[in-house]
């Protein structure tokens, strides 16, 4: 597997692992560092409000300025839970700029943010 495909697979893995409803609060801990918070600005590449796995991927840049895909997940929330909180399939548009704040992925070379809170470019909260 090429390196970029490995990164993409791990990104997807983080997104999926974070995007399923979890029974115990510490389920996300192995993949995400719950003692830290990071903030990342990116462009929406994929947004799909499906159940149980919502999928949000941002195009962003890492510290070196290299382009990376970042998987954003929402802690315990499944698609139905996000829906109850006001998310819809139209909440985000491809190409839109958002900022995601949450727990970073532990694995090196993988961009992921869990339990994310999102804000739009003009500062309004998402949804």
């Amino acid at each position, binding site marked *: 597997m090429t390196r970029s495909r490995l990164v993409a*697979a791990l990104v*997807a*893995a983080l997104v*999926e*692992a974070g*995007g*399923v*409803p*979890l*029974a*115990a*609060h*510490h*389920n*996300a*801990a*192995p*993949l995400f560092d*719950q003692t830290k*918070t990071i903030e990342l600005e990116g462009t929406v590449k994929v947004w799909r409000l*499906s*159940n*149980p*796995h919502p*999928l949000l991927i941002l195009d962003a840049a890492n510290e070196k300025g290299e382009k990376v895909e970042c998987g954003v997940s*929402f*802690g*315990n*929330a*499944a*698609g*139905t*839970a996000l829906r*109850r*909180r006001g998310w819809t399939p139209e909440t985000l548009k491809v190409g839109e700029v958002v900022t995601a704040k*949450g*727990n970073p992925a532990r694995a090196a070379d993988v961009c992921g943010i869990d*339990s994310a809170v999102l804000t739009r470019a003009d500062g309004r909260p998402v949804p």
Partner: protein
Amino acid sequence: MKYTRLAVAGLAAAVTVIGVSPLVSPATAQAPAVTTFTPPASTYTPPRTPWGDPDLMGVWDYQTVIRMQRPMDLAGKARFASDAEYLAWAKVNAPNRDSMGAGVGAYNEFWNERNFVKNLNTSLIVDPPDGRYPPLTPQAEQRRKEILSKAREYASWEDYHALERCLATHTPNGPQAYNSGTYIMQSPGWIMIVRERLDTRIIPLDGRPHIGSNIRQWNGDSVGRWEGSMLVVETTNFTDKQRMGGASGTSVPAGIPFGNFKVTEYFVPVSAERIEYYATVEDPTTWTRPWTFNLPWERDRDYRILEYACHEGNIALGNSMRGERVLEAEAAKKGEAGK
């Protein structure tokens, strides 16, 4: 518990471990008691479908704070004396989970958005009367030890529960923490029970025989009949690959295969909004006597069943297995280095 295993446990879609049941003791040498369970009758008569069957159509839910087994500190007390006593117990004992947010710490979720059906029984198990599983047979106890010790290696996908493999939740319809909405749909000669999460059961009511014994299914094969307003469903032909415990959400001892189960379910409508659901599980090779649990179902007119595309996004299973192999390799390296 290894970290990647937790990630897959998460995939067990909002399964609340509503009380890890202690190991059941193996049977002592005594003649097994043969009991048949008769559900309490109800005087309620539901409306009829256009073709004359009792009409149970719609969405039902059955989230519960009550455990399968009666807690030891409630031994001898089959029911809460009042709603107030039930609520007080539920506030303290309801399952804990985090809300959305960055690991703020567990809190009791009884008062938030989940929809617990009121149940004044102190255990879901209503037979045996002590509210606890009957003893396992010695062969079943031995078999579950073997299954559990092998499963701990997570050598293969077969060591994960059906839910983590996106194959099935389970029949009988035991409790479930999220996405538990269940749609009952009917047509002449048929009833269909659609659990939002994975299990669609289609049950013929025309008295036909079960499918052949070489066909084994995760939810078994069901045939049903009406007895007055009560629906009785008999299910056989389970596969041994389906096992109780682990991520099943029914908080039962793990490592018990379904293959020899005979399940009899009774759906007793008691009001327009409530069905008393009973399920009797019989397997003389596993338990010394049948046992029955009661789980009230309540209508939820606000719940719309959605698609549950479990397998389509199931990266967690592979991730967990990959993680196990990495940990094994690291342990092996340490072993080599120590020589």
